């Protein structure tokens, strides 16, 4: 078997990569492997960040014409910490909490890949910052309930629910910023 990189020397290193059950094989000679740097046998520094930036680079379009709209998005940088999308794909880490907003458009497909298709948090809420969110979750539930009451013509119960929603919203606006 010849090396997949240079196509000249015989391949002496064989890699198997399995991502989400998709198996890809990679055969390469030692000289090309050294040039690539990352594939040296025995070095075991292949971290989650390398893997992640692999996923991210996969998203980067090959077309690098500077007039292309996607290219401009690569140039986009976070207003708070200055991190560019390009840098993010290299280090695989965000620079600040604002980055999640700045790059939100690109984020969901990545999160889906990493977190088994999930994109929305459903775990713990912080006590202080989460109080408003908890009320919001409650109000949402009550609204659905109120609609059900109206449809079932249980207007008294619907009115009770409405008052409950109002008092919750009042509480939220008082406690909010």
């Amino acid at each position: 078997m010849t090396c997949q990189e240079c196509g000249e020397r015989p391949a002496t290193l064989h890699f198997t990569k399995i991502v989400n059950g998709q198996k890809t094989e990679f055969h390469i000679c030692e000289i090309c492997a050294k040039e690539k740097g990352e594939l040296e046998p025995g070095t075991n520094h292949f971290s989650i960040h390398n893997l992640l930036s692999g996923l991210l680079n996969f998203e980067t379009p090959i077309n690098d014409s500077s007039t292309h709209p996607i290219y401009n998005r690569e140039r986009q940088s976070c207003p708070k910490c200055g991190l560019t999308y390009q840098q993010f794909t290299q280090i695989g880490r965000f620079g600040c909490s604002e980055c999640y907003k700045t790059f939100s458009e690109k984020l969901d497909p990545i999160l889906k890949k990493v977190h088994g298709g999930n994109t929305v948090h459903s775990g713990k809420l912080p006590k202080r910052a989460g109080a408003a969110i908890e009320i919001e979750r409650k109000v949402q539930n009550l609204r659905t309930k109120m609609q059900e009451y109206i449809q079932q013509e249980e207007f008294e119960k619907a009115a009770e629910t409405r008052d409950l929603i109002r008092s919750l919203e009042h509480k939220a606006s008082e406690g909010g910023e």
Partner: protein
Amino acid sequence: MSLQRFISEAVSPWMKDEGPDSDIVMSSRIRFARNLRNYVFPVLSNGKQNLEVLESIKTKFNEAPNEEVGRLELIEMEDLKPTQKRVLVEKHLVSPNLVEQSKNGAVLLSENETISIMINEEDHFRIQCLEAGLRLKEALNLANSLDDWIESKVDYAFDKRKGYLTSCPTNVGTGMRASVMMHLPALVLTQQLNHIIPAINQLGLVVRGSYGEGSEAQGNIFQISNQITLGKSETDIIEDLQGVVMQVIEKERSARRKLLDNSRIELEDRIYRSLGILENSRIIQSKEAAKCLSNVRLGIDIGLVAGITKSILNELVILTQPGFLQQYAGASLNPAERDIKRATLIRERLELEKQLKKSEGDER
């Protein structure tokens, strides 16, 4: 320093505790990644912001979270000698990353070393709780209480859709990594683990060596942890992990029984040879030491070897690593010197055990 005193200082108090399923599960760990809303994450910080974070933590977290936990001691990485740092890594109290790469990195440690809160690692806070044996729920409760304590004093970076915002998107959501350290010699010996690992991976869990990411499994010790942090609640994550761990425990126990039934003499031979090496060798590399310790531990757990306490093996696994050996020697050692020191330490420790057992016997 006497060996006994050195050990008492070297081994975290929680390690002496055995905990549920301790014949297979060595420890359970919960880690929360948390960040401050108004500061750039440590990865991008110019050092000045990290220093500000550290300074504010020094003043804000000076009191005990609660009576049970007690006061946490703040240790700054730059105040430590290289060997001392290495010792903290070998005890799993800080990450290699904190020691090697962080600017103004520090750790808040509880007296019994169950709790370590890393500061300015990849994220501003890494809250970690360790428990002996299979005790994920207890570790989660403890981590939650510390998390609430920290949140009462600082503003976390949190988004209602994305959850706790972390530097690496692989941690976003709960920011939680739950992991269980397991000793699986029989599954390795019978080559079943190779089939089990891919199945575990398909469930959104990862199997790695004992020092986490990129580390090799030494001494048949493996760490199973969750991969997914977004879209599942903390409780669901640990329940899933616990379920898989219970199954692996069952498989390991049944493999041990089968080995005993079908190849008892071979197994005994293997275990006693290892014990012989540990008791008599004058030079031993860490890999061989880990292998022998694993075999002897298996021997104790299945009742073939008597007269050695289980916990001394947990102890020796940690004590025979480069950082601890140099700490014990009180000097930096090259690899060849370490191999000699390691052999000495193991022999002395096993000898000490015999004396302790004997004096216990005399008293009775």
